[in-house]
């Protein structure tokens, strides 16, 4: 009942709300364009560089520095075996990660979302904390682990040091905390009733998971798969650290090997290989943008 306060008249003197909103939007656009400009320039250079002998700024030039100098010779590497072996290794790592992370996260996420067991809370916080540790910190320890695994007869040849399997194993482990949390988020959003109905209908817990629950989180699995595939495809640090030579190099490592310490680097070649590496991802992305957006929406709910 106090009348001592008098509210100031709305928008007194200032621009009308609609105008203000319009200006705000313009400002936002200007800000966004400015902030992505460096990246756009970078990509433009990348594309231009792959088809020219040299570049000056964003302009293609020939050896003498005159405008022009278009060439396809930077792309000659596609006719050599090394790039295809690197691509195969990249593919193997990425696919192994999709399968490994997919299965473990879908099972683990369900268990953490739905089941009660000792240490559940500790495990959840533990994985989150572990995710905060960067892979770099673990490199030396992982090196010893891989050496140990390599000494195991038979399977050691596939998952030890300097094998694609070993790299994939490490990458899966590093990606798991994120995957498990993500899938837990998706399972958390599902109703209990459906699960109860299936239990009453006569399904075992495993069957409930496999036949009833997993089909409900298919968008999550799809998004997670894409996410992991990209992570595996672009993996650099782990493959670089735990492989020697060209036989087990994946694409980013192959790219790095083009930049030698002793000879001058052909940057146009590096650009071409870089672009080549991106092509599968770009195609992937065009077809799956919506799913990729879904991963954030799904993961943030209910966790």
């Amino acid at each position, binding site marked *: 009942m106090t009348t001592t306060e008098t509210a100031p008249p709305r928008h007194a003197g200032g621009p009308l709300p609609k105008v203000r909103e319009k200006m705000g939007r313009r400002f936002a656009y200007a800000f966004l364009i400015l902030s992505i400009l460096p990246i756009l320039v970078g990509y433009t250079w990348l594309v231009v560089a792959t088809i020219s002998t040299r570049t000056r700024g964003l302009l293609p030039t020939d050896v003498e520095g005159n405008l022009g100098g278009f060439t396809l010779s930077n792309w000659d590497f596609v006719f050599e075996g090394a790039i295809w072996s690197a691509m195969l290794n990249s593919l193997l790592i990425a696919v192994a990660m999709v399968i490994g992370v997919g299965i473990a996260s879908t099972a683990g996420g369900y268990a953490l979302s739905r089941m009660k067991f000792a240490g559940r809370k500790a495990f959840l916080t533990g994985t989150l904390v572990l995710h905060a540790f960067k892979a770099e910190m673990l490199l030396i320890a992982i090196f010893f682990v891989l050496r140990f695994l390599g000494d195991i007869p038979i399977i050691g040849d596939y998952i030890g040091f300097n094998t694609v399997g070993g790299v994939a194993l490490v990458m899966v482990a590093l990606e798991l905390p994120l995957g498990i949390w993500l899938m837990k988020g998706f399972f958390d959003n599902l*109703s209990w*009733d*459906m699960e*109860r*109905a*299936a*239990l*009453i*209908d*006569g*399904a075992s817990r495993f*069957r409930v998971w496999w036949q*009833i629950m997993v*089909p*409900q989180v298919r968008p999550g699995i799809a998004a997670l798969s894409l996410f992991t595939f990209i992570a595996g495809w672009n993996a650099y640090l782990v493959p670089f650290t735990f492989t020697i030579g060209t036989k087990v190099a994946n694409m980013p490592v192959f790219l790095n090997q083009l930049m030698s310490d002793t000879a001058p680097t052909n940057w146009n070649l590096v650009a071409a290989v870089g672009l080549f590496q991106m092509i599968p991802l770009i195609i992937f992305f065009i077809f799956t943008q919506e799913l990729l957006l879904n991963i954030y929406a799904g993961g943030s709910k209910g966790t």
Partner: protein
Amino acid sequence: MRVELDNLSKAWDGVIGADRITLDIADGELVAFLGPSGCGKTTTLLMVAGIYQPTGGTISFDGQVVNLVAPKDRGIGMVFQSYALYPHMTVFGNISYPLRLQKLNKGDIKQKVQAVADMMGIGDLLDRKIAQLSGGQQQRVALGRALVKEPQLLLFDEPLSNLDARLRLTMRGEIKRIQEDLGITSIYVTHDQVEAMTMADRIAVMSKGVLQAYDVPEALYDRPKTLFVAAFVGNPPMNFFDVEVMRDNGDFRAKSEAIDLVVPHDRGEKAAAADGKLIMGMRPEDVNLADDASPPAEGLTLIGEAVVVEPLGREDLVGVSINDVEMRVLVDKTRGVRVGDTVTLVFNTSRIQFFDPETEASLLWA
């Protein structure tokens, strides 16, 4: 199947969901668990289903304790409020799921599913996806899935709450008809007392995890054993007044500042035995407007002012203030009561109720 719950309890870290529920359900009976949300009725149902492990007490089916029997081995079918259908399967896939898990041969499955679907009136929808069905159709699929394995016990968890009012009425009758035709023992959880009254053979009224009353619907309505039951059962709800009952010239009278009513001898005697203040209850339909043609006896009328008039169609629900004591009465709408009118109310005191304000127990139906 006969169901017996004996001191059945459930608690989570000190939070009590169900507190020593004891009741028995006869073979073929439909029992409603009635109560407001959070009263423990769904908790109790899920214990009967085997989804929750009781923390105390036993559940027996036909005399066999089933506490440790897995849900799938209890011979039950369940219908959920959310229907809980499997959205990635067709109608056929949903209804046949329990049978497929039993590994019946395909011909039998087809035949049984078709029979159940026909009974539910969804025989021509078997190829549809769940998302293509209306709420009512989904409800029928859920019921079909529960019935197809020929359960000994049917469990309903507020199955009609998500349907619109008209459909609810239809499904109510249909569920009751099917349950009676098949003679399946059923437990029906609901917070809607009309649903419970119309469908159930007996109603278990629950509040805060405790079984308040367990009786046939008429008994709950006419002879409520606790204040909670009296308040919860019946729509519009019972009116309550603080009064004292005393003997006066051979009559028993319920008195307060606003109220002075003659109470029938049998009820008055029991109420007067409890000294001091008590709570009097009158249902809105047991109070009428005075009729000029037949003036009522002394001590059965009170005069008040109409403060609210809510037309219900057939009747008006009139809020009346008697010396600042508010009550609601159902009045024939031809009387045309309007807000501000002075009305003379006639109390049918043969249906009066009395409760102890401390224990909230009935003084009449101990």
